[in-house]
């Protein structure tokens, strides 16, 4: 099938899945609203102070938006990091980039940055800086070894991840706990509704990161042939790497800042899509945006309901799925890779 039609078909199918998951997330929850009450709230016919209106419009809807945005951003970041490192197992949490961004966020919270418009921008800036430092660290450690082999890169990611997780623990230990509010909750990868201003910042930053990656999707295919081969085909490799590095870091940072360091989304979603759609980044990048949104929203809906009225962290669910999936990929499909 030609790639344009393949992309259209994939986007159509994934949009249907996403729509179904959105409906599920709207109608199911521990508040046990009747479908009629939810519809009434959505169409503005319910009393603004009623439980149905508050739960639907102030809790479920914003949370759906956060989950979908974060899932899309993390999945696209996964595709981008995989193409950039030419390592099919790379992804923000495996590479330690999420941990770097999380460290930035905790630091920002210590400085009192919250979720108003300006503070949200500051929060994202700290997360972005943390993501860049972590990704740079991974690159330096891996480059010190013999080339960027798959194992070296993964090992470097694990090391950087452990380092930043420990640094976060240090920060939490020395700072007055009350000032950090829900930080533990957030660190576990727990989605919570965020104010409209923060949601706006989140959307803009994720869109910018997505645009940076999408604009170079064709070049990312060529990069898979090796950097030298890409240059010989006319790709400006330095500019390409910088844009993808920046785009992937921005996507990771925005997701971590507003949704938390949720692991493995960037591994699970791209690989499910690779199996169905192949490895063309021009098809994968847009599909990962929609597929990632549907995946994380579904995971979050599960997290909200499996042990209701209590809640599981969505990060726990993605990690419980992601870790075995990672081992599966490592032992089967990528066994033979150097």
């Amino acid at each position, binding site marked *: 099938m*030609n*790639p*344009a039609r393949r992309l259209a078909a994939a986007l159509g199918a994934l949009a249907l899945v996403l729509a179904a998951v959105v409906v599920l997330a709207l109608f199911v929850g521990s508040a046990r609203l009747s479908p009629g009450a939810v519809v009434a709230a959505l169409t503005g016919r319910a009393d603004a102070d009623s439980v149905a209106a508050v739960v639907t419009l102030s809790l479920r809807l914003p949370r759906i938006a956060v989950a979908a945005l974060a899932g899309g951003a993390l999945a696209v970041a996964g595709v981008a990091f*995989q*193409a950039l490192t*030419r*390592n*099919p197992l790379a992804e923000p949490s495996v590479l330690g980039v999420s941990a770097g961004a999380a460290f930035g966020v905790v630091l920002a919270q210590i400085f009192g940055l919250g979720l108003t418009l300006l503070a949200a921008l500051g929060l994202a800036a700290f997360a972005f800086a943390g993501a860049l430092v972590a990704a740079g660290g991974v690159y330096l450690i*891996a*480059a*010190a*070894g*013999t*080339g*960027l082999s*798959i194992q070296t890169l993964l090992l470097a990611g694990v090391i950087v991840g452990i380092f930043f997780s420990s640094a976060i623990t240090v920060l939490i230990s020395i700072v007055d706990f009350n000032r950090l509010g829900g930080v533990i909750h957030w660190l576990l990868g727990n989605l919570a509704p965020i104010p409209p201003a923060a949601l706006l910042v989140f959307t803009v930053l994720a869109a910018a990161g997505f645009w940076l990656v999408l604009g170079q*999707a*064709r*070049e990312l*295919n*060529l990069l*898979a*042939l*090796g*950097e*030298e*081969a890409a*240059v*010989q*085909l*006319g*790709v*400006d490799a330095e500019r390409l790497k910088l844009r993808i590095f920046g785009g992937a870091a921005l996507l990771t940072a925005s997701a971590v800042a507003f949704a938390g360091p949720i692991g493995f989304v960037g591994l699970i979603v791209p690989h499910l899509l690779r199996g169905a759609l*192949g*490895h*063309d980044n*021009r098809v994968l990048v847009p599909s990962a945006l929609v597929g990632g949104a549907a995946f994380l929203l579904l995971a979050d809906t599960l997290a909200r309901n499996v042990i209701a009225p209590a809640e599981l962290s969505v990060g726990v669910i993605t990690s419980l799925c992601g870790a075995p999936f990672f081992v599966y990929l490592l032992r089967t499909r*990528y066994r033979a*890779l150097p």
Partner: protein
Amino acid sequence: MSVRVELREVEFGYAEAQKGADAPGRRARPFHLAPLSLTIEPGEILGVIGPNSAGKTTLIRLLTRVVRPTAGEILIDDHALASFPGARLAREVAVVPQELPHAFPFTVEQLVLMGRYPHDPARYFESERDLTIARAAMTATGVLELAALPLDELSGGERQRAVLARALAQEPRLLVLDEPTAHLDLRYQAECVGLLRRVNRERRMTILLVAHDLNLAAEVCDRLLLLSAGRIAALGAPEDVLDEAQLRNVYGCEVVVDKNPAGARPRVQVAWPDA
């Protein structure tokens, strides 16, 4: 279609051991390419031979501007290579690399279509015309029926032909091959030689063939360039370059040169030393 490439006093060197992974041109030891002057004539097949680290790969990298000369200049039809935008250069010179990374198994058709990138880098998907050209290239190298297969399911010979099709789809005027038969068995070596001759004749493509295999080079090439430690040791017809004394000097081992009964081109054999 044919192109003339001229190297004028081209120099290149690494002062000391290079560091940094993935840096193009990484090398373990200091290396210097002496001022090198050379013309690749339109329509010819020029073979580049020489021992390891003689400068063969560096020559490819200079021609494709993966590295730039420290002195001198390279001209393509009298235009300075240094001033070409990347995509323009990729429309002039295509490289068939030694091996293909396989972290992401693209299909044969996807790989071949990548050769169309330099013709319109701004497009997101390739055009119908790109697809037609890619199909023609796949037909030329006999991989059209493999178009939908992922590269990791191909044999070594099939993969090599897919890569060659990608280079043909690039529609270059100079085709550079880096050890095209290195991992191929005899049958695929023969196929590869036939293919190169056909491309050279039918598409009037100038070919630069870097080869470890002296007999392959002697068989296919109009002229041979023998490099030794970054210098030209000999340049000329295969019969003149493949001289016993000369090869002994450059490779540092005893060789016997006679004529291949099939075709009467020179044939080189190592005189294996006793224990």
